[in-house]
């Protein structure tokens, strides 16, 4: 030791409650970081903006974490905060989503009737051979309203009520959009499967 004497220091920890809050937050909220980031990327369409949006969401969430009701869905709570943050700060600056003609979508996909589809099309094995990229690309190419419900329900596992709360529509609208979105996705998957020779282009399956 260079000096002939040393100062003794002691570490004073922060307020115990604050520390506990931090640990609870780390345990409950941080595991949802990837889910939030993935969705932020879809909302902002830019990696830097997604970074900022998620960071701001977590900072806000931490500020109000003492008000978060333990035992309720933390992921849904974080998504709600992210939506509000997005609306307040980012929405004005980003491009408005494309307007969708729901009737047009409905008419197109209503044509997908059982009579035009062989039962072989419904075997999961066929679609298991598709690439993850193809599936992701198909979902990402959807109009925003449809993409959102598929992601929140099928990928993130939210209930209709949580989704309805997130996108500010009635529960019935969530159900309706999901119904159509899945049919759209089915049509896209069939197209990819046909391109890869997994089913025939005329819509019939291979033996």
């Amino acid at each position, binding site marked *: 030791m*260079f*000096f*002939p*004497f*040393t*100062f*003794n*220091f*002691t*570490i*004073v920890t*922060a*307020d115990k409650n*604050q*520390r506990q809050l*931090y640990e609870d*937050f*780390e345990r409950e909220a*941080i595991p949802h*970081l*990837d*889910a*939030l*980031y*993935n969705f932020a*990327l879809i909302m902002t369409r830019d990696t830097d903006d997604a*970074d900022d949006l*998620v*960071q701001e969401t*977590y*900072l806000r969430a*931490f500020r109000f974490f003492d008000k978060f009701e333990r035992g309720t869905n933390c992921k849904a709570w974080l998504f709600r905060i992210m939506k509000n943050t997005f609306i307040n700060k980012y929405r004005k600056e980003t491009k408005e989503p494309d307007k969708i003609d729901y009737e047009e979508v409905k008419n197109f996909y209503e044509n*997908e*009737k*059982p009579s035009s589809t062989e039962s072989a099309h*419904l075997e*999961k094995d066929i*679609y*298991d051979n*598709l690439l*993850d990229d193809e*599936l*992701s690309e198909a*979902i990402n190419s959807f109009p925003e309203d449809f993409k959102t419900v*598929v*992601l929140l*329900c*099928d*990928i993130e596992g939210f*209930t*209709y009520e949580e989704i309805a709360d997130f996108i500010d529509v009635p529960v019935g609208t969530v*159900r*309706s959009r*999901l*119904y159509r979105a*899945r*049919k759209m*996705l*089915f049509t896209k*998957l069939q197209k990819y499967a046909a391109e890869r020779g997994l089913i025939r282009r005329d819509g019939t399956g291979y033996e």
Partner: protein
Amino acid sequence: MNKELITAFIDNEIRDDSLKEEIRHLIDTDKEYWFEYQVQLLVKRIAKEKYKKSSAPGHLKIRILNQIAPDQKIYEPHKETSIWAGLFSKPAFSFATAILIVVSIVLILFNRTPQQPPEISEEQLTPDNMFYQAENNFKAIVQGKLSPQLLTGDPEKIKSFFESSGVKYSALVPTFAEWSLIGAVVSEDKEEKFAHHVYAGKKGEIVYVFQVDESYLKSREIISLNDNLLQYLEQGNCFVKTEKDKVLLFKKINHNICVVVSNAPVQEVQNNFCNI
């Protein structure tokens, strides 16, 4: 019946048991409903299994944790000060003692021949070299490729993690006012485990610490370090190398050789680690 109810049925969103039963019956008996059910079910499963989610970059987690971490590291003098510090509280001794100590320090400084830090050449940086490994690990952390296996700000939890993960030496995990402890990683090489931990600064700077017991470096079986550098550290010196975007610091602490790689200001890294 509205076919959209099949979607709700699949998603377990129908609360009414009789309606559930009705839908189930329709699926079993009506070809159109059966088809709708199969399509919806298939698509839901495929989407869940195959959708590729984007992962948050590693730096984002660190940045968030760092910003919300409570300020637990406020340094204040210990109540039981050392006998030397006590001398200053006695008026009769305070001035004379202070003069004596200052003179002693000056004498020591003048009589001390500073040892030149060793040169590290690129050829010496083989993959088993600690210097080389530390630089690469730091790069991986900054790029988000290497994330902590344990995420905690508690040094005791990190020490326990090292111990339970099979690290055979006692690792030092100090805390600092400027940086928050983020987490730790245990690496494995030839069945031996090594301790790594990470701090983050308030502006998102990363401070990565890799420490090994000096016996590993002396035996050179798994990991090595340049002889002259090891000798330099054995003599109690702190080795600091600054590069364009980072600083590397080596210091022997107790029986461990520690390497610190950071993009925090060099003075900050030096002040914190060279004085341990």
